[in-house]
């Protein structure tokens, strides 16, 4: 089991070591970080191979008591089963590649050591989520990844937009976690009659909840409510509509962060959670339907947003949203395997895309696609690798994305016609926007305006390209290694009809992009003009950000907080406190009239007092 603990704690050890000894030694810091995550990766691989040889080894669980009180025991432990092992493999594997890439990308950064320290901490937190045995442990990891994400988005905190984006990401996740934590608490309360009986433990809950529900101990409406509350968590972390707004802004962070956290791993944690707690949602079909629709809408709406975006990283961010929507939809349709499958392949190709985009940014210091162009000439390798990722994303036959997306579409085809069509349409949009991005940024001629900017465009160093190549290899091959089989459950059958339709749609998307943005056969401006209404809507991001800004600034800050501050100032301090003070002072002002200053008045009062006393003592 030492190896299992090693998976979890090697990155944490690296983070602590960086903080203690390497904060002013960048080389040492990156070495430590890579060593930490590398150890973790090696341990995961070791377990993976073991598990392949002896499937009986899984699931395996070990834990220590984090809190043990007479009424409450919260363990902290490691649960290794097919699901967590696969996810850990993705996290450590993709993570290692990105760590190595970062040494090149972040070279010369002022806060290089801090970057790697937080990155290591992130790896630890993410693995805590993945390997957790109970809800509290998972929640701790959940919050910690949010914190790391906050720090990494705001890595260049001098930029106001970056600092704001970090804040926004943390805030939106906090709002989501409000529901999530309530869900966890409610679930705990429902899991037993007395405090000592209640538990957070996944496995125990999985076994106990159906019994309790069956016995009627849990009220009929409770479980759906719990389900919805817990789903709030993934909605925030995996940026589902309408809590998606933080993810595009999160692109302010360094690109490796976008790749690791905001594409491959952290945002997928929501999907992972849905898989992990699938037994909970299985019992409440109405919640599953909700999940599926939220996922489907997210997939479609964010694909739309990607159509009009000009920032290369933001296009990828919307694409991430859209793909996460696919995964959530898959889960909502009951496709645990399909969801995880897509999560895995997406981690590969999206990390690839981001890192390639990072390579572009590294070489040109520009991320507006219209100011790029002709990169095919100056950055041959990067362009090729980006193309592989783009095709995988678009679902080009034979690449990994194709297989996993097919699974989801087949699933949708079986369960829900509207969601199937939404999914298919989204596939077309996906192909179109990624085609557009590639055509505009990599083909054509270097843009006239930005000669100064990327006139010196240069290919990135090998330390960045090699991880890219590895990821590209995975994106090409991940469809053939039998991930669903490893997960040990029945996968969807290949469905020719679905495949052909989606191929047609994808082909249309790519073709249109080619026509519009490379051949210029159709003018993009005229198209936008013709579709003015949707175009405006998309350009304003459905006005959702505006609505939130309005809510936060006007309602929350000015109205609610302002009202409370006014109550505090005017009523509590003004009326209540100062009012009493005023009353006291007024009483003093009135009563001091008694002090005439004439000695005899005092003597008189004295005398009257004596009389009163006499009358009391010698009452006649």
């Amino acid at each position: 089991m030492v190896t299992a603990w090693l998976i979890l704690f090697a990155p944490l050890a690296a983070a602590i070591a960086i903080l203690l000894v390497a904060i002013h030694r960048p080389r040492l810091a990156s070495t430590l970080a890579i060593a930490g995550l590398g150890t973790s990766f090696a341990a995961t691989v070791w377990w993976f191979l073991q598990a392949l040889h002896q499937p009986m080894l899984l699931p395996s669980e070990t834990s220590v008591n984090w809190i043990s009180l007479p009424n409450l025991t919260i363990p902290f432990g490691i649960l290794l089963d097919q699901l967590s092992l696969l996810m850990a493999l993705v996290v450590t594997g993709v993570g290692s590649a990105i760590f190595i890439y970062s040494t090149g990308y972040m070279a010369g950064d002022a806060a290089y050591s801090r970057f790697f320290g937080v990155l290591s901490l992130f790896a630890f937190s993410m693995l805590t989520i993945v390997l957790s045995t109970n809800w509290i442990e998972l929640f701790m990891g959940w919050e910690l990844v949010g914190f790391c994400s906050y720090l990494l988005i705001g890595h260049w905190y001098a930029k106001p937009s970056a600092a704001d984006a970090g804040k926004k990401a943390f805030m939106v996740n906090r709002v989501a976690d409000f529901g999530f934590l309530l869900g966890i608490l409610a679930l705990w309360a429902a899991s037993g009659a007395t405090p000592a009986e209640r538990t957070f433990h996944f496995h125990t809950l999985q076994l106990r909840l159906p019994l309790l529900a069956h016995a009627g101990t849990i009220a009929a409406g409770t479980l759906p409510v719990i389900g919805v509350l817990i789903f709030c968590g993934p909605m925030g972390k995996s940026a589902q509509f309408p809590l998606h707004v933080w993810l595009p802004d999160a692109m302010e962070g360094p690109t490796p962060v976008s790749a690791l956290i905001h594409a491959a791993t952290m945002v997928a944690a929501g999907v992972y959670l849905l898989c992990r707690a699938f037994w909970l949602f299985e019992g409440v079909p109405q919640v599953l339907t909700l999940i599926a629709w939220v996922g489907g809408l997210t997939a479609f709406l964010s694909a739309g947003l990607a159509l009009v975006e000009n920032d290369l990283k933001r296009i990828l961010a919307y694409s991430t949203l859209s793909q996460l929507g696919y995964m959530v939809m898959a889960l909502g349709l009951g496709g645990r395997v399909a969801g995880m499958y897509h999560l895995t392949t997406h981690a590969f190709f999206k990390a690839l895309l981001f890192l390639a985009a990072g390579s572009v940014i590294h070489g040109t210091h520009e991320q507006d696609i219209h100011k790029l162009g002709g990169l095919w000439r100056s950055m041959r390798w990067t362009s090729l690798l980006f193309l592989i990722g783009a095709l995988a994303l678009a679902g080009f036959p034979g690449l990994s994305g194709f297989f996993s997306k097919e699974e989801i579409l087949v699933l949708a085809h079986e369960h829900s016609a509207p969601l199937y069509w939404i999914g298919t349409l989204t596939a077309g949009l996906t192909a179109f926007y990624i085609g557009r991005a590639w055509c505009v940024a990599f083909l054509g001629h270097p843009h006239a305006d930005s000669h100064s900017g990327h006139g010196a465009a240069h290919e990135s160093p090998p330390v960045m390209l090699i991880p890219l190549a590895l990821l590209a290899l995975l994106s090409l091959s991940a469809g053939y290694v039998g991930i669903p089989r490893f997960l040990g459950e029945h996968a969807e059958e290949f469905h020719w009809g679905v495949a052909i339709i989606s191929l047609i749609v994808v082909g249309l998307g790519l073709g249109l992009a080619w026509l519009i943005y490379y051949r210029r056969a159709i003018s993009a401006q005229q198209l936008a003009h013709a579709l003015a209404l949707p175009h405006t809507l998309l350009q304003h991001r459905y006005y959702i950000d505006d609505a939130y800004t309005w809510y936060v600034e006007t309602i929350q800050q000015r109205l609610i907080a302002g009202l409370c501050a006014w109550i505090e100032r005017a009523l509590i301090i003004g009326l209540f406190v100062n009012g009493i003070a005023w009353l006291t002072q007024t009483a003093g002002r009135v009563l001091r009239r008694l002090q005439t200053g004439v000695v005899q008045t005092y003597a008189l009062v004295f005398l009257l007092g004596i009389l009163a006393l006499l009358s009391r003592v010698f009452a006649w």
Partner: protein
Amino acid sequence: MVSAVLGVPLLVLILLAPMAGALMIALLPEHRPALIRRVAVTAASLSLAGAVYAILTYNTAAGGYQHEVCVPWIHSLGIGFHLGVDGISVVLVLLHALCAFTGVLISYAIPQRVKEYFIFYLTLITGVFGVFLSLDLFFFYFFYEMAVIPMYPLIGVWGSDVKERGVVKFSKEYATMKLTIYLTLGAVVALVGLLWLYVSAGATTFDLVALQQQFAGSPLDPGLQRAIFPLLAIGFGVIAPMWPLHSWSPIGHAAAPSAVSMLHAGVLMKLGSYAIIRLAVGLLPAGAQTWLPWLAVVCVMNIVYGGLVAMAQRDLKLIIGYSSSSHMGYVLLGIACLSPLALNGAVLLMFAHGIMTALAFALVGHLYDQTHTRYLPDLGGLAHQAPFIAGCGVIAAMASSGLPGLANFVAELLVFLGGWVVYPVQMILGVLGVVITAIYMLRLVRGTFFGPSKPVFARVTDATTAFAKLPYLVLIGALLAVGCWPGPLTRIIASATEPFIQQATQQPVRAATLTSTTQPESHSP
């Protein structure tokens, strides 16, 4: 078990080391501030060492009051000098020792009247130790007043006005008057309750342990308990601070010098909640069962309202001040639940919040010394000049908003778990309070540390030497240690809270049926 150091009982050492320091300083010449500071640090370190030793040697299996010292004093009134710690107070003693130690270190920045400052400061420290250690109502009250009174000169002389755009919003004189009047009035109300309790118990003893035993055998008349309980709860609630009697506290925090704010928000406010646990709930269980649901409602006002008001503030210290009153709402809520888990959470939160808020005030103090402003719109980009302080600030903000791995998370979690069954609605609002906390804390961090570097602050310096970093590191270390590994501390607390709640939730039983088994816990929502 009385352990002694060089013949001085441990608790007496903890209590009197600061007092001895104050007396020594009184005898030192004024023009040797370095020596004065050294004496103060030595005194605080002695207490800290004692407190650490006390918590390390606390026997959780045995429970109850340990390291007791008892010297009868006035026999006819039943007053005795009785010290002792149980699982609740030993944790708070450690909290106070930590805050006092770091506070003395932070006080190195005090520029003028060093001698008088440290005399008052060490007296204040002694008073707070006395409250946590005393097991005699008379001394409890005595030390309580001793802790309140030095605040008056400390804020009035060494404090600073609350300004907004250079305009004074609250003067330090206003703040200190308000604080002193409030706290003294609260103390008087509590005193009435205490004397009433003393008289109705037969006026034979002020000894807490004796009273507890007496009430365990023959409880007070429930009607009487219901009458006395509000006096104690409101009287001590003022310092907790209980809504709507809180308005002295944010202003008081804001005007006080930073080391005093540290003690004030870190520890002094806990005196109130501690007294409510120990005296109000501990001695008047029937009164508690009647009144605690109302307390739970008030707490929610504390949490949500305090948080919302904090959101609207622009002075750093006011933000933290209101957040303190918001967070103390969780403590009171944990008490109001009357369940062992929630009470554990409440006590742990007193510890966690004390450390966190001490850290926050120390940081703000450092920034204020450097920038001479606490007005949020004027600040910004300080992470460039002071990365260490900024890092600590982020940690403090995260602790405040309940990030796992830091002690506050565990404490709040325990309160939520313990209270979920008892007061679900209050708990939902409590969780909402965590969201509100995150809003203003993030805003504070963003506005203070992040953003482009401002030329005005070019001369701002970081805490560079190991000595300057020490107080921050000690506090963060405590937060992390408890947050990552809460097991030992929670076990110590539980050794006191489990029997405590058992006793408090027991129905008043007649003497004849006293021998029967303990009744099951009853939660009255």
